[in-house]
């Protein structure tokens, strides 16, 4: 494996508080050094004007394999991840069949190693068949590679099952990730319940359905001492509940998705199912609260809830189209647009929420550029302007609500285990426009 020198970039490693211009040396699949030259590298990447950071980590991805390979496969989904700068991801167990056994988890790990794209960590189901009745074999799931548990797609509706899961998962120090929503309050729901749903005549899903389960699960984590992670938090009240829970010392964490801090239920006015997801897009006051939670650390990480659905499934009557949107290839630019450009976060703060914080949640040895750590690196061009065009995505699906948006910032290279596995190709470069001065090199180039 060749040694790589990434030269002249702005090196950001929030795990160690680093933000400075420095060279990064990789070799043998590991980070060799920062700064001083060790030896002459076989590959030199010019990263002047670029951000060089630990490979991004997305804790909430649906890869659809096994069962719905027409929507996405482990190979296509991990390819899309790399194009978005994501070098490690945790995939949800709502496949067919569900990832609820050691063998199923091992299948995911095996397919990911065959694909040789991004690292994949399976998340095991909480309950057998995700039916919400009996605990799955959590210990054997861990043996098969599971890093957390969830019945995502559906909540663990039963309070007693959730309590048992939180208690039992402590044995492995694994987190239980919860899609918080009281199912009885959202039967038939298509979008957020409020003025917009009333006006469109579409059945609504009230914010309270999320708030109630967030409150319940924080209390359950409190009495069990277990770790609960609130997935795709979307309401103002839920953010406040998590903030208050943390203040009391409860082991609760939360993630937010880019669509929940940039879009609202007003987008449903066109009846386009690409704006239909669960939890649904809420109101501007919820968006503001989610941003506030991101800024003050209540929400410590960002995740995509990448949920591919083929065009024929999405291009239907809105109540029959499935929930969910893809997000891996828009995570970075939409985070820049929603959080960096308005001044809510700095680049090191954003990168912390995409690297070290998700790594800590999953308990995986990723998200840092400390010498000796895995050589997973993302190189970002923070200034490149481009237009989002889902037809050019590597994901198999096109269900993206950001089509046509003019954005800034893009991953131009992804390195996994010391291998360059993604490089923005010359075709793509033509569709992007550089706004930086000419003396800075537009994209990384390698020699040798």
């Amino acid at each position, binding site marked *: 494996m060749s040694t790589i020198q990434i030269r002249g970039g702005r090196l950001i490693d929030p795990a160690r508080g680093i933000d400075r211009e420095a060279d990064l040396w990789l070799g043998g699949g590991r980070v060799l050094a920062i700064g001083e030259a060790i030896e002459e590298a076989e590959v030199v990447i010019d990263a002047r004007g670029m951000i060089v950071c630990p490979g991004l980590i997305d804790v909430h991805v649906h890869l659809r394999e096994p069962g719905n390979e027409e929507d996405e496969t482990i190979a296509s989904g991990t390819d899309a991840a790399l194009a978005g700068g994501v070098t490690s991801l945790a995939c949800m167990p709502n496949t067919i069949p569900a990832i609820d056994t050691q063998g199923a988890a091992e299948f995911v790990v095996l397919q990911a190693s065959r694909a040789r794209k991004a690292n994949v960590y399976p998340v095991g189901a909480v309950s057998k068949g995700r039916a919400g009745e009996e605990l799955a074999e959590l210990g054997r799931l861990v043996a098969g590679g599971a890093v957390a548990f969830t019945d995502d797609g559906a909540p663990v509706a039963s309070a007693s099952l959730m309590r048992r899961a939180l208690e039992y998962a402590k044995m492995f120090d694994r987190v239980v990730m919860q899609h918080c929503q009281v199912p009885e309050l959202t*039967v*038939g729901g298509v979008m957020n319940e*409020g*003025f917009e749903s*009333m*006006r*469109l*005549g*579409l*059945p609504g899903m009230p914010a309270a359905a999320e708030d109630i389960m967030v409150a319940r699960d924080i209390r359950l984590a409190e009495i069990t001492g277990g770790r609960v992670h609130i997935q795709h938090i979307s309401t103002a009240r839920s953010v406040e509940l998590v903030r208050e829970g943390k203040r009391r010392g409860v082991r609760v964490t939360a993630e937010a998705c880019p669509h929940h801090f940039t879009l609202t239920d007003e987008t449903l006015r*066109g*009846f386009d199912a690409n704006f239909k997801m669960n939890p649904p897009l809420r109101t501007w006051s919820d968006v503001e609260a989610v941003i506030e939670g991101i800024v003050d650390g209540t929400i410590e990480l960002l995740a995509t809830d990448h949920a591919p659905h083929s065009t*024929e499934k999405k*291009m*239907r*009557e*809105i*109540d*029959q189209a499935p929930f969910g949107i893809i997000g891996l290839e828009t995570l970075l630019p939409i985070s820049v647009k929603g959080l960096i450009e308005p001044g809510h976060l700095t680049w090191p703060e954003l990168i912390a929420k995409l690297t070290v914080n998700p790594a800590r949640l999953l308990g995986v040895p990723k998200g840092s550029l400390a010498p000796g750590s895995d050589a997973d690196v993302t190189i970002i061009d923070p200034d490149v302007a481009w237009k989002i065009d889902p037809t050019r995505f590597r994901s198999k699906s096109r269900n993206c609500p950001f089509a046509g948006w003019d954005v800034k910032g893009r991953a131009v290279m992804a390195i996994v285990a010391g291998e360059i596995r993604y490089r923005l190709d010359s075709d793509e470069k033509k569709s992007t426009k550089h706004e930086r001065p000419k003396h800075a090199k537009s994209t990384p180039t390698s020699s040798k």
Partner: protein
Amino acid sequence: MNLAPASTKAWHRKHLLGIEELTRDECAAILDTADSFSEISRRSRKKVPALQGRVVFNLFFENSTRTRTSFSLAAKRLSADTQDFSAATSSLSKGESFIDTAKNIEAMGADVLVVRHSTPGAPHLLAQHVKASIINAGDGAHEHPTQALLDLLTIRRAKGKIEGLTVGLVGDIAHSRVARSNIHALNKFGAHVIICGPPTLVPRSMEPLGCEVAHHLDDVLPRLDVVNALRIQFERIHKGFIPFPSVSEYLHFYGMTIERMRAAKPDLLILAPGPINRGVELTPEVADGPNSAILDQVTNGLAVRMAVLYLLSGRTHPHPHEHDDHASGIKPRQRSERRAE
């Protein structure tokens, strides 16, 4: 053709998807054109060649009798070829998608698709995928524009105006496309709208649509010039969600009975979009009584649908000179000014 020229000039749309996006002038254009067409229905020979050679398809993905029949008859009176398509006899049961079904029908040469569907936005989705004009004949709980227009026409004829009237929409507002379209339409014409029903069917959150919310009919009844008694949409109410304890209790609070009529203005106009549940929204004495305009609504519905078909087809007509005054045989009532509203 020289039919209500001021009206046709106000109309430039390819589709009729909802009332909300229409201007007051556009609504008035349809009502004025409908007034002209009403005359045809009173003739012994009830047919004009305005839409000769055009094809109007009724695409009904949800049950309907009167709306479909009304559109069919309206198209026939304009000499269009009409064809009905209902979901029960279609390939939808074989798994064909809704959009593919519509595209197939368009490939048979349809110029206008009259679409009814249980999903809000379904006609809007079709409008993005087919070239034909789309008329929304009811999309879930969202809109039912021709129903609101025929309600307006009925009120305008009975009262001579719409502006300044207080109109009560009573019953299941939350699940009602008729309510939404009526609220938008009545607001455009300056009427005051009161929606009335139990909080489970008339949520406070509807107020910003432009209406007053009331839960006790007896409190607001004396102020009303028009009552539109909406049907309980049992088919849109989910299992496990029963919005009131019993039909008897509903009738007690909201049913239009003879006793209630005594507390109302003597010229209170009674409307109901139908089909009516006799004994739930209205007692038979009220439905068939002197204040009821329920059957006028049906007659006016035909004229409104003729007007809509005419205005949409006129816009997209490939040979605009083919049908002039002589060909149409219509001698429209000339309107130098619109009726006071």
